[in-house]
């Protein structure tokens, strides 16, 4: 009776391949991880105090992830976020002594400027985003290290006073809502997805592809600048390792959230929220379970592998632009 | 009136291993005449020229220069006899000066030293004769191809050559450089020189030459006065090969008791094709007809292991073979030219040589590589055999035209000398000349015992070439018709019946 085994086997694999399952997968993943952590830490993770601490770790990665989401939908990759956060945080801290609004704007503008550098080299010289962002990562990592060699740069007391959860939640939610609106209801979302799934065809259909790509990088930088402000409130002073490995963390979060690495039409806005939450919960859970950092990294790697294997979109295998 | 014949060639035959480059060709050149020589590449033009200037030895026939029989042993010997050639790539020394190039090998001496002043003076005088006032002492590479050509011609003139051969001189010249060359040619013609002009630009032939000789496949089609033949007539004579080829295409004769080369029984994969059986005799050509998406490509991919067949067996030459990957298929000598040339066939960035040797090399595995020499030989053999229009085998395959790319892929699989060759839409998207070529090659391979599966949506091609035709509809084999008797109408009706 080989025939009907084939039948249900192929039905199962068909289901696994189908888009609906792929769409749901991240949510299932989040529930599974939450459930596992709840069980393993026998409920301690859900305690209010713990929950607030967990949430406080979500804010700035969520904002940065929103920016990177637009870049990855283009099919490109942005490795600069970590060092952008570092440099922007320095600017925010220095300006925080003058006045707070200036600090916020300064942070955003610095981030936007770095994003513009990425965008300019990627578009004008048609260099792969991968290469450009590695160079800028190094460059601004060095700049950040240079300024924080002697001592960490302190932020003004005034800015630290702002450190209240509802402010941070407010900013994050606002960013998410605005980004969702732009993505879903305006031309930007369509353009970005079009460039991701077929750049030449998009160009031939009237999409200003170069402009879209440039603005995506600038937006990612600006949002990271805003995240720097949120980070400075929480951290208070900037050391040379600020934002270290943030770019890998964001990449993993978004992929855990179900974002296909090649971008294009299959991206869902929910990838950002689910991915960042999942990463933070996983991170916190492992810390609470007492694994030292080495094993934590190991487990994160394995979890990441499982999700990647399931969500990979074989049809859209392309070189990263 | 053009003068007496200064050059006569009668019954010239030259054979290269396996191919008769020139077969009993007569050619004559008069004094003070521009005589164009034309034909498709591979027609024998350059072989004839190389025979005149001694590069190729002629197997039979006679060459008369001013009535005396000559047998030049090489270009230098020919130059002594007064025959100079300007090749397409102008083979002079770029680093030497213009003047030196004109007098290389025969510098005027003054008390046993080279008399440079004399050389420059005469070079300048020659160049002014062609209304070019250039600094003859600068290196040749400094100047454009047009001026380099003029230097080569000046050299021929200075040697009082009687016959000047120009091989594709205008291919890299722009408009006014071509006019400059023509004015020089007309001057030389007036001075009594006989000029043989080879070009593929038809309007240039009409512009400057008095007579023309057309070669095709090594045969002399005819010599005509310029106004005797209209352009369309000229083309059909030159390209006549295709009309010939199309009408002379005959289905391969398959003896009834020829061994079954390929037998596939009830092959199918669950999702796309459920159950197809095919038998293919040695040297037989089966056509696959059907609308797009009727499963022809899917069936071919299963035979070749490009997609996994879930059930059914495949026998090659009698033995049961399990074909899971293209590698297994190639091991059991099945070859497959895919439909989507760009995606699955040509590897654009690699050279033609690398593309052609790919299948042979992958069968050998990377541990015992083919030497660069073997690869070039293999590539050149098929470039010549299939008439791929390329200067050499190092050109990037991606830069070739559609027809030539298709020939490169065909060469890749012919080189692997398969028993069964599957061709998926080999003639799509290429111009009329190449289409006929590909069909001729296919039938030639059948003649040599290769069994061919020919998938095409051009019904006239299928009918013309196939011994048997399998008609597919909605991923199933609905009919098998004898190629001889059926017409387009029958196939269309069988196909149409089913389609909703």
């Amino acid at each position, binding site marked *: 009776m080989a025939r009907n085994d084939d039948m249900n086997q192929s039905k199962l694999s068909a289901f696994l391949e189908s888009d609906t399952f792929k769409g749901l997968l991240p949510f299932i993943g989040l529930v599974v991880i939450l459930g596992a952590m709840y069980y393993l830490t026998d409920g301690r993770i859900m305690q209010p105090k713990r929950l607030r601490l967990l949430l406080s770790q979500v804010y700035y990665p969520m904002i940065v992830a929103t920016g990177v989401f637009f870049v990855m939908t283009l099919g490109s990759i942005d490795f600069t976020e970590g060092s952008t956060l570092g440099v922007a945080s320095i600017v925010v801290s220095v300006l925080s002594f003058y006045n707070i609004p200036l600090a916020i704007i300064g942070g955003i503008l610095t981030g936007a400027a770095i994003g513009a550098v990425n965008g300019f080299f990627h578009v004008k010289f048609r260099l792969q985003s991968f290469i450009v962002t590695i160079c800028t990562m190094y460059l601004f990592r060095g700049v950040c290290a240079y300024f924080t060699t002697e001592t960490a740069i302190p932020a003004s007391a005034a800015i630290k006073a702002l450190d209240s959860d509802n402010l941070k939640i407010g900013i994050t939610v606002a960013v998410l809502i605005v980004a969702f609106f732009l993505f879903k209801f305006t031309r930007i979302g369509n353009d970005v997805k079009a460039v991701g799934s077929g750049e030449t065809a998009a160009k031939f*259909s009237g999409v200003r592809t170069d402009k879209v790509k440039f603005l995506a990088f600038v937006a990612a930088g600006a949002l990271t600048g805003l995240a720097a402000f949120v980070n400075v409130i929480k951290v208070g002073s900037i050391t040379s390792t600020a934002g270290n490995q943030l770019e890998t963390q964001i990449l993993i979060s978004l992929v855990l959230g179900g974002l296909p690495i090649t971008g294009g039409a299959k991206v869902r806005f929910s990838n950002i929220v689910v991915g960042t939450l999942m990463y933070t919960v996983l991170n916190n859970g492992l810390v609470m379970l007492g694994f030292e950092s080495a094993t934590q990294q190991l487990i994160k790697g394995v979890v990441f592998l499982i999700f990647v294997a399931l969500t990979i979109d074989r049809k859209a295998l392309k070189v990263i632009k | 009136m053009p003068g007496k014949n200064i050059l006569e060639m009668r019954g010239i035959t030259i054979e290269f291993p396996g191919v008769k480059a020139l077969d009993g060709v007569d050619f004559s050149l008069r004094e003070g005449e521009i005589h164009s020589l034309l034909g498709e590449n591979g027609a024998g033009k350059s072989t004839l020229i190389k025979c005149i200037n001694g590069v190729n030895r002629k197997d039979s026939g006679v060459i008369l220069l001013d009535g005396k029989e000559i047998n030049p042993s090489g270009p230098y010997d020919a130059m002594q006899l007064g025959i100079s050639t300007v090749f397409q790539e102008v083979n002079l020394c770029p680093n030497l000066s213009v003047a030196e190039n004109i007098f290389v090998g025969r510098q005027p001496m003054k008390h046993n030293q080279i008399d440079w002043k004399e050389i420059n003076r005469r070079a300048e005088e020659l160049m002014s004769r062609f209304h070019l006032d250039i600094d003859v002492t600068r290196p040749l590479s400094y100047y454009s191809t047009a001026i380099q050509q003029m230097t080569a011609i000046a050299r021929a003139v200075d040697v009082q050559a009687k016959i000047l051969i120009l091989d594709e001189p205008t291919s890299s010249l722009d408009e006014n450089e071509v006019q400059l060359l023509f004015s020089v040619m007309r001057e030389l013609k007036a001075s009594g020189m006989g000029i043989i002009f080879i070009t593929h630009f038809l309007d240039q032939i009409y512009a400057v030459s008095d007579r023309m000789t057309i070669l095709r496949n090594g045969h002399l089609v005819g010599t005509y006065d310029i106004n005797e033949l209209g352009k369309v007539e000229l083309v059909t004579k030159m390209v006549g090969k295709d009309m010939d080829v199309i009408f002379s295409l005959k289905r391969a004769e398959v003896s009834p008791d020829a061994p079954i080369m390929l037998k596939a029984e009830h092959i199918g994969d669950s999702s796309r094709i459920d159950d197809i059986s095919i038998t293919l005799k040695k040297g037989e050509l089966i056509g696959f007809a059907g609308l797009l998406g009727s499963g022809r490509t899917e069936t071919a991919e299963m035979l070749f292991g490009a997609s996994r067949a879930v059930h059914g067996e495949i026998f090659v030459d009698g033995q049961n073979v399990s074909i899971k990957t293209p590698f297994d298929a190639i091991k059991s000598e099945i070859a497959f030219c895919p439909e989507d040339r760009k995606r699955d066939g040509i590897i654009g960035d690699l050279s033609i040589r690398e593309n052609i040797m790919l299948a042979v090399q992958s069968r050998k595995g990377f541990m015992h590589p083919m030497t660069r020499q073997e690869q070039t030989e293999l590539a050149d053999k098929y470039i010549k055999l299939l008439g791929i229009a390329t200067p050499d085998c190092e050109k990037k395959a991606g830069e070739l035209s559609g027809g030539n790319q298709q020939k490169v892929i065909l060469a890749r699989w012919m080189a692997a000398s398969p028993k069964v060759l599957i061709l998926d839409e080999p003639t799509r998207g290429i111009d009329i000349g190449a289409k006929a070529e590909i069909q001729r090659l296919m039938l030639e391979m059948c003649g040599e015992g290769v069994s061919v599966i020919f998938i095409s949506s051009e019904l006239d091609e299928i009918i013309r070439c196939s011994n048997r035709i399998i008609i597919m509809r909605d991923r199933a084999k609905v009919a098998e018709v004898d190629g001889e008797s059926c017409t387009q109408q029958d196939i269309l009706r069988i196909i149409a019946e089913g389609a909703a």
Partner: protein
Amino acid sequence: MSDKKILLKAEHIDKRFGITHAVNDVSIDIYAGEIRALIGENGSGKSTFCQMLCGIYTIGGGTFTLDGQPVNVRNQVEANRLGVSIIVQEMGTLSGLTVAENIFLGHEDPFMHHGIKDTPAMIREGQKLLDEYGFTNIKAGAMIDSYNFEDRKLVEIVKATYMKPKILIVDETTTALSQNGRLELYKIIDAVRADGRSVIFISHDLNEILTHCDTISILRDGEYIDTVNAKDVNEDDIKRLMVGREIGSAYYRTDYGKTISPEVVLSVKNVTVPGQIENVSFELHRGEILGFGGLSECGMHEAGKAVFGASLDREGTVTLADGTQINDIPTAIHHSIGYASKDRDNESIILNESIRNNIVLPSLDDLAENHILKAGKLNRFAQEFADKMQTKMQGINQFISDLSGGNKQKVVLARWLGKGSDILVLDSPTRGIDVKVKQAIYALMQELTAQGKSIIMISEEIPELLGMSDRILIMKDGRINGEFMRSESLSEEDLIAKMV
């Protein structure tokens, strides 16, 4: 019709191939001493009818009465004996034999002396016949393969006519002959008529028929329609009789002489893209289909891109009627120019996107109400235009990569229909698409031009160019090399002459 003696009476002739009804109850009378043309579209049964008469096919039903006696010919040799001979379209002579052997094939007995073939006599006799026919350049003793296609056809004519057949069938032979070959053939068939015998002449060349034949019988889809006198009909009447039926065959446009409005919608002035096209200038009129033809690398595709503002470093100007210059794609689209590329999967459709997004993309700005896009509105917009093009799909949110080639092209056209583009640049719009969908696209093109839109159609298929364009520009080596207005007499050769 003169009341001459009936030479051949065919009553209720019928023939089926499997399920196709090739000849359906045809009754024709052919009189002595006339040249009867037998015409009809491909597949109308005219060849089958004649091949039944001379024994190539067995007679399905009905009887042939020749000169009063019923005949049922089993093979060509018997046919010749009864006075019926045929010159087929393809190669009628057998390679490997001498010319003389070919001429007397099947009638060797006069040369047989108790079993031994007297070859020299045969050659002598053959040469006599050849000289009689005036084909002096053909040697009876030589092998037939040494002659080119045309001379072999002349030998075939001699073979078919030397024994004075009562009825000579000439099946589309003239297409393969050059001008002087055809003159020879006309001389011979006139001689047959003068001798009181008759000829059945099958050809597509209507003016050849009108000049050389007395009466014309028309077949359509295997059925006999009518017989008319050549003198009292012209080409249009014959065409109408031949085509007649409403469905199907009106594949291309059948209207000729449509006046194109002088209003210029787009003017292109000496546009140059280095290395691809050189100062191309032309104008596009409202409601016109401007065809672009040429060999594959002639630059016509780049010209299409230049008009759309898609070529990078382009010199020269592309200006609309209202003076706006088109220099990049967004302005082109904004000023209602649409472009469907030859490389459809890469440059026209976004493969990994839904059908809806592919259709709405250029019109996003128009659909947005102060920058806000409502999903419902987009869906309705996409559904409306997809349905207008009868695209076969499950739903507009289905991924476009699952559609067939024809349906993908429909989505591209739906996109520009939705955008309301007045000027459409279509590059090989029907490449690799099924027959039925091709018809739909041609119908759409005519509808659009009727609404006053103008189309630039770039195509590599000459019949498509001839069939659809009001005006055709032929490109060669990056330059416009010829311009033709739409007319019935325009033939493929005219276009090819400019292309080569």
